């Protein structure tokens, strides 16, 4: 019983990362119907920006004197990483995706471009900073709370809370604000929206900013939970988060959130009760089953293709 509760907590933490990344996939897909395969690597970039921000603020680079308290460094690192990662996301959209969209290229080409952007980010990082692992510094000391055989850390609670709050925030932004409405409108009909006087490009840039900054947030939390960073850390998790988003029903914020946690739960529970080699086998068999029963995903809505 204690093991079960412990594993539920483990799964909530692990699922939080999938959820946060899946939200980014979902936002971009929802607005542009573009599968932004570079998203996992944007997440990686977020973790690296956080690493450089944190080491800079801790005074390890020698530019500013050391001695700033850990919580203050963390409080500054998060916005720094979010801003820089958003800039990176928007750059990708401006340099790679927008020109293709302007020329009216087929969606397939844009998706392939996204894949290539991801590889460029991974290998660019490898070339710039080398293959050595980076150790994310401990900013806030880990406190272990033991409650009747179940161990919880302050970090674990924070990760889960941030994921839930992020979901609520995005749900509100997309559903209730003006710009969120505009995003939905573009998703509904990209050609009619400009005719109504809505600046499509601004809305698209905003979408990338939102998606990238949540990837950065995931990156910071991931770096704090698993403090060994490498250039390819985003590839696999990004790919799995994409599958989670599809199972949840891509394009639906609720779906991405639920899909991420679902995948996290299945992975942790399989490992808890079976040999770990069964993890991906069972996890993806379950997801496959869900998709074959409900091809639009858990929360997805079937769309008619307009000819």
């Amino acid at each position, binding site marked *: 019983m204690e093991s079960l509760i412990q594993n539920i907590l483990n799964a909530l933490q692990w699922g939080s990362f999938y959820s946060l990344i899946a939200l980014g996939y979902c936002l971009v897909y929802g607005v542009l119907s573009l599968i932004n395969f570079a998203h996992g690597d944007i997440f990686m970039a977020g973790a690296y920006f956080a690493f450089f921000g944190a080491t800079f603020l801790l005074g390890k680079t020698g530019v500013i004197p050391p001695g700033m308290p850990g919580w203050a460094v963390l409080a500054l690192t998060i916005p720094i990483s979010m801003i820089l990662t958003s800039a990176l996301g928007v750059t990708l959209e401006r340099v790679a995706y927008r020109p293709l969209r302007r020329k009216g290229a087929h969606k397939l080409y844009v998706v392939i471009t996204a894949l290539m952007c991801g590889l460029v980010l991974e290998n660019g990082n490898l070339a710039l900073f080398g293959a050595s692992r980076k150790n994310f510094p401990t900013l806030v000391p880990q406190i272990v709370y033991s409650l009747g055989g179940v161990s919880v850390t302050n970090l674990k609670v924070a990760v889960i809370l941030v994921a839930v709050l992020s979901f609520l925030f995005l749900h509100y932004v997309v559903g209730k604000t003006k710009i969120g409405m505009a995003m939905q409108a573009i998703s509904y009909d990209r050609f009619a929206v400009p005719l109504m006087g809505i600046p499509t490009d601004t809305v698209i840039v905003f979408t990338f900013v939102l998606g990238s900054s949540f990837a950065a947030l995931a990156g910071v939390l991931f770096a704090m939970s698993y403090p060994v960073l490498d250039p390819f850390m985003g590839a696999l998790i990004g790919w799995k988060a994409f599958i989670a988003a599809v199972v949840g029903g891509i394009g639906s914020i609720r779906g991405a959130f639920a899909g991420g946690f679902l995948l996290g739960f299945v992975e942790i529970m399989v490992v*808890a009760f079976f040999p770990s080699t069964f993890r991906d086998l069972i996890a993806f068999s379950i997801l496959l089953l869900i998709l074959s029963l409900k091809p639009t995903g858990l929360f997805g809505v079937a769309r008619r293709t307009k000819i």
Partner: protein
Amino acid sequence: MKKIVLAALCFLFLAAPAAFGADTLKIGFNIPLTGDIPDVGESSKNAAELLKKQVNAAGGVEIGGKKYTLDFVYEDNESKAESALSAARKLITQDKVIGMVGPQSSKQAVPAGETANELKTPMIAPWSTNPNTTKNRPYVFRACFLDTFQGPVAAMFAKQEFSAKKAAVLYDIASDYPKGLAEDFKAAFEKINGPGSVVAFETFTTKDVDFSAQLTNIVKSGADVLFVPQYYNEVPLIVKQAKALGWKNPILGSDSWGSGDLMGLCGDDCKGFFFVTHYAAAGAQGATKDFIDKYQAAYTKTPDDVAALTWDAINLLLTGIKNAGVTGDVAKDREAVKDALQKVKDFDGITGKMSFPSGGDPVKCAVVVKIDEQGKFSFFKSVCP
């Protein structure tokens, strides 16, 4: 017989026309300069460059009255099995090396050893402890002890030092080295403490970063000690997550802990734990200390076990070449070097004396190291076979 062979070789050497002009010895290195464990590749290359400089500054290696300068060829195997194969093939067929050093980890050394044996080229894997690397391969040698030896040493140490009755193991099932070692540890521990005394035998797959489910099982199993035969990039994650899930008992590691930047990645969390290894830099004496001082002077860091073993592997290969002599005919030389290596006795390496009584595996001692409060790997205990 030995003398006749030697005499014949000397004769061959004298008879061989000097027209070859081969006054360099070409040795290949099949090492992971990029990929999952680049630090391992860097250490290997550092040790090799240090040795090359030292030998070449003295005019080269003297073989049969003639001086040969060393020429090292470094091939990157990207820490991948496929790339290790192509690197070995390139070194053997294109670069025409007389012998090879590396690959370092078993994942690459097992397949590369097959190529070396097929193409009849001596290969010394400095750091690979999986039995399959040298099994039935007369051309393949190693400079370290075997997994089958490291497992029992760890089990024995757990019993003696922590009086452990129950043990847990967490290892990567998709990688040759940890898998072999975990199984050997389990067999040895259950031999000492009875069947079922390994209460948790948990696995994960390469590139996993979350071990919370496995560690939850391990913490609940009530084990006295946790054995983690993993690499330096995974150990910090495992140790930190274990502590977060309430693990308070000792953690015991294998020689893979000692390579790379373990303390840089792990920080205070790894202090106080133990691992079995080939050599300890802190507390070294004689030739070992001499090597450590030179290495520190050249690279401003303490050599890890990979560097020390690579150093020994190169010297071992050079000893083989010296004993065999050089004719200039690469195929013939390679075979002679193989035969000479099999006869090496009491080779005085910086990681201990080595002999090769049975095939490619040396007989030598293991060291148990403690990570002390300063984060240094200090000598704790020596265990000989």
